C-alpha cells in the first residue's frame, strides 16, 4: 500500500506556546489509521491542520508525493481531504438532500436549485452508504445517529480520498456505534478510502484501526501496526508510564446507614430505576451514552422533571423539584458538561468554589463574607492540589483537569451527604484522573455517599463498591464489586429482558 498522505515535521504554536513538535505522520491508501492521545496531546490540532482549518507554523504536507498548501477547509476538500467534526454541522431546517449536497447543489438554467436532480443525487449518495432515508425530509427530524451518518455521507460524497473522523462516537448509543463501525469498514473496502480516526475509546480503536499513532504532549510517540495494538500498550504510550489501571481502590471499611434511597423513578429517558446508597460507599452507575444515566441524575437533582418515583433521604421522603432544593438537602451533582452546566468560566476560582454554597457566606444583612470565602477556596485549592493555586484567577485559564477539580470543590463546599459525579474524568489527562479517583475514594472513606456515573468500566470497577448497570433507560441490575470483571458488567448490560 502506497502512502497517500505524509506530514513532515509539522510544528504549531499558539501565542508562543508550541503544541506540536516536529510531528511526522502518514496515512496509507485504504487504511484506517487511529490517532490517540490524552487531552491536549495535539490530536485535534493536527487534524485541523490536515483539514485546512488552521495553518501550521512550519512543516510540509505531501499528498501522493506532491506538496500541498492548505489555506482553508475548501482547499482541503479540493485535495480530497474531508473531515467530520465532533459537533455535527447539520442544518435542521434544510432537507437531507440539501445537507448532503451543500455547496454543490445542482443548478438549473435559471440559476436556481434543481430540486429533482438534487434529490436524485442525494439518494444515490445515500444508496452508496447503504441507507434508505427520504432525502426530501428535514434533517432536524432525524436522530443524532442518522445525522452523523448524513454528515459522513456528505463528506464522502465529495469524492474524497481521505476521511477524518474526530470522535465520531462520542454522542452515539451503543447500537449506533456498532452500525457506524460496520459502515466504516464497508466503505473502506468498497471505495479504498483512507480514514483517520480520532477516539478516546480504545476498544473501538482496537477493533477498527489498521495502524494506530499515539501522540503525547505534541510529540509522536510511535505508530503501532494492527497486530501490535493492545490497550495496555497504547495506554502506556499515551501516558508515558505503566499505570496500574486495575488497581482497586475499594473501601475496606464497613458501610454506614442508607443515606439516599430512590424508589421506582420514572422520567424522560429512563424508567423504573431503584437504588440505594450508603455512607462511605461509592455506587457506580454504568451505562453508555443514551443509557439514561445523566437524565436520571438530572431528574434526581431536580434539574429535569421527575415523572414519578420516591426519593428518601436519611429515611425522610423528599420532593426535589429544583437544584437549589437538592443542594440544600445535601445532594450535590458534578456535571459531565462542566463548561456549560458547571463552571463560570469568566469568574474567579474563588467564586466558582463557593457557587453552590453562597448562603453560607453571609456576614450580616446579606453582606458577603469575603474572608471566609477566601479561606474556603484556599482550603480546597490545597486539598485538591489545584494548580496554579491562585484563587483570584479566572477559571477559563485553567487546564481541563484543574477545572474538573474546581468543579468538584464547588460541590464539596456545599457539604453534601450525597455526591453524584457524572463522568468525573472526561476530558482530563491521566495524571489528574488518578488524582480525582483518590479524591473520590478519600471522600467516601470520610463518610460521604457517592454515586459515580461513568461509561468507562475500568474506572468504575476500580472505585465503586457496587455497580448499577443501565441500558437504554432501563436498570439491568446491580452487582457487588467482588472481583467484578468488565465481561460480567457488559454481559449484564446486553442481557435480554
Amino acid at each position, binding site marked *: 500500500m502506497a502512502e497517500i498522505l505524509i506530514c513532515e515535521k509539522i510544528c504549531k504554536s*499558539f*501565542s508562543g*506556546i508550541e503544541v506540536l513538535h516536529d510531528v511526522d505522520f502518514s496515512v496509507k491508501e485504504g487504511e484506517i489509521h487511529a490517532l490517540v492521545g490524552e487531552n491536549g496531546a495535539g490530536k485535534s490540532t493536527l487534524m485541523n491542520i490536515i483539514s485546512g482549518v488552521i495553518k501550521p507554523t512550519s512543516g510540509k504536507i505531501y499528498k501522493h508525493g506532491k506538496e500541498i498548501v492548505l489555506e482553508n477547509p475548501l482547499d482541503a476538500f479540493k485535495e480530497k481531504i474531508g473531515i467530520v467534526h465532533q459537533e455535527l454541522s447539520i442544518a435542521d431546517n434544510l432537507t437531507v438532500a440539501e445537507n448532503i449536497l451543500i455547496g454543490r447543489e445542482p443548478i438549473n438554467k435559471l440559476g436556481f436549485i434543481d430540486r429533482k436532480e438534487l434529490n436524485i443525487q442525494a439518494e444515490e449518495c445515500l444508496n452508496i452508504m447503504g441507507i434508505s432515508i427520504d432525502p426530501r425530509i428535514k434533517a432536524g427530524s432525524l436522530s443524532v445517529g442518522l445525522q452523523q451518518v448524513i454528515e459522513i455521507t456528505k463528506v464522502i460524497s465529495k469524492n474524497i480520498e481521505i476521511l477524518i473522523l474526530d470522535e465520531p462516537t462520542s454522542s452515539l448509543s451503543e447500537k449506533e456505534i456498532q452500525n457506524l463501525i460496520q459502515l466504516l469498514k464497508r466503505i473502506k473496502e468498497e471505495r479504498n478510502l483512507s480514514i483517520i480516526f480520532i477516539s478516546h475509546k480504545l476498544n473501538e480503536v482496537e477493533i477498527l484501526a489498521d495502524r494506530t499513532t499515539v501522540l503525547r504532549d505534541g510529540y509522536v510517540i510511535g505508530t503501532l501496526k494492527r497486530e501490535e495494538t493492545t490497550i495496555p500498550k497504547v495506554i502506556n504510550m499515551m501516558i508515558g508510564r505503566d499505570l496500574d489501571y486495575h488497581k482497586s481502590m475499594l473501601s475496606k471499611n464497613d458501610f454506614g446507614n442508607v443515606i439516599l434511597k430512590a424508589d421506582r423513578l420514572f422520567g424522560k429517558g429512563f424508567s423504573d430505576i431503584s437504588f440505594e446508597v450508603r455512607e462511605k460507599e461509592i455506587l457506580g452507575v454504568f451505562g453508555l451514552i443514551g443509557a439514561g444515566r445523566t437524565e436520571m441524575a438530572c431528574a434526581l*437533582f431536580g*434539574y429535569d422533571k421527575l415523572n414519578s418515583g420516591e426519593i428518601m433521604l436519611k429515611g425522610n421522603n423528599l420532593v426535589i423539584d*429544583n*437544584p*437549589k432544593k*437538592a*443542594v*440544600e438537602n445535601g445532594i450535590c*451533582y458534578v*456535571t459531565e458538561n462542566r463548561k*456549560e*452546566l*458547571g*463552571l*463560570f*468560566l*469568566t*469568574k474567579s476560582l474563588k*467564586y466558582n468554589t463557593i*457557587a*453552590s454554597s*453562597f*448562603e453560607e*457566606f*453571609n456576614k450580616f444583612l*446579606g*453582606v*458577603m463574607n469575603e474572608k471566609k470565602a477566601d479561606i474556603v477556596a484556599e482550603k480546597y485549592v490545597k486539598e485538591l492540589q489545584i494548580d496554579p493555586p491562585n484563587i483570584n484567577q*479566572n477559571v*477559563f*485559564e485553567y487546564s481541563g483537569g484543574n477545572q474538573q477539580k474546581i468543579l468538584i470543590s*464547588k460541590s464539596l463546599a*456545599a457539604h453534601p451527604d450525597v455526591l453524584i459525579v457524572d463522568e468525573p474524568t472526561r476530558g482530563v489527562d491521566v495524571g489528574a484522573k488518578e488524582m480525582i479517583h483518590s479524591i473520590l475514594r478519600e471522600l467516601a472513606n470520610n463518610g460521604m455517599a457517592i454515586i459515580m456515573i461513568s461509561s468507562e468500566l475500568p474506572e468504575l470497577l476500580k472505585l465503586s463498591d457496587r455497580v448499577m448497570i443501565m441500558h437504554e433507560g432501563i436498570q439491568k441490575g446491580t452487582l457487588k464489586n467482588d472481583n467484578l470483571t468488565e465481561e460480567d458488567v457488559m454481559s449484564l448490560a446486553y442481557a435480554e429482558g
Partner: protein
Amino acid sequence: MREKNKLYKQIIENRLTTLIIISIIIILMLSILKPGTFLNYSNFSGIFTTMSFDLLLSCGMTIVLIVGGVDLSVGAVVALASIISAVLTKRGMGVFFTIIITILVGAIVGIINGILVTKFKLAPFVATLGIQSIIRGFCYVTTSGYLISGLSPAFTNLSRATIVFIPSLVLISVILSIIVGILLKKMNLFKQMYMIGTSPKSAEMSGIPADKLKVFAYMLSGFFAGLSGVLIASRYGMGAATYGIGFESRAIAASVIGGAVMSGGEGDMFGTMFGVLIVAVVNNAFIQFGGQAEWQYAVSGIMLLITLYADRVKLSAMRRRGH
C-alpha cells in the same frame, strides 16, 4: 516601552479609572474653554439634577444587564408611575403612601417582565419591548392625553427642595446609585446575580435560585423606574403619558459605557454613574457652546461604540496573557 505598555493596559482594563480620567479631562477642557460658566456649583448642580432620572434608571438597568437581561420597558414605566402618583396625590393620598404605591406598581411591572423572561422563556429584548408598548398604550388610554396637574405642594416639594445646598433629586439619585454600587460590590445576593449572568445554566445547577433572582433584578429595575416616575411627576408638577420616551436607550448606553456587557455577568454601578455623567456633561457643553442639542443621540451612540471597542481591546489583552 514595556512599562508604558503595561500602564496603558491597566488603564484600559480598569473601566472605572478610565472613565474617571476621561471625565476629568473633559471637565478640565471645558472649564478652560468656558471659564466661569462651566466649572461652578450651580452648573454642576444643574447637570446632576437633570441627569438624575437617567441615573436612577441606569441603576436598575445595570442590575438587569448583570443577570444577562435587558429592560426596554423602563421609559414607559416612568410615564405610568408619573400618572399614577399624580392621580393618587390628586385624590388626596399622602406623599408617603403615594410613593410606596407607585413604586410598587413599577416593581410589579418589573416582576411581569421577569416572569415573561424566566417562565415563558422569552428573549428579554422581546418581552420588555412588548411590555413597553403595552404600558405606553395603557398610559394614553387612561389619560386620553391630558396632563394630570394641580398636585399638592407637599408632593411637588419632594424633588424641588434642597437639603444642605444639594437639590433633593441629586441627593436621592446619587445616594441610591452609590448604595446600589456598594451593594453590587458587597452583597451576597448580587454576587449570585453576577454568577447567573456569567452562566445561567451553571448557576441553576449550582443551586443558585436563578429564576427568582432574575425576576428580582427586573423588579429592581421596575422599582427604580417607578421611583424615577414619581420624582419626574413631582419635579414638573404633572403626570403625563409622554414622559420617558427613549430613556431606555440612554440607560443601556450608560450602563454599557460603565462596564456592563449585554451577555451578562459584568457591570459596575460606579462606572455607570460616570457613564451617565460624561454623557450629561458633553450635552451640557454642546448647549453652552451654542451647538446643536441633537448631537446628544449621536454622542451616546458613538461613546457606546468606543466603549465596545475598549472592551474588545481588553479582552484580547486578557487572552494574550492567558493562553
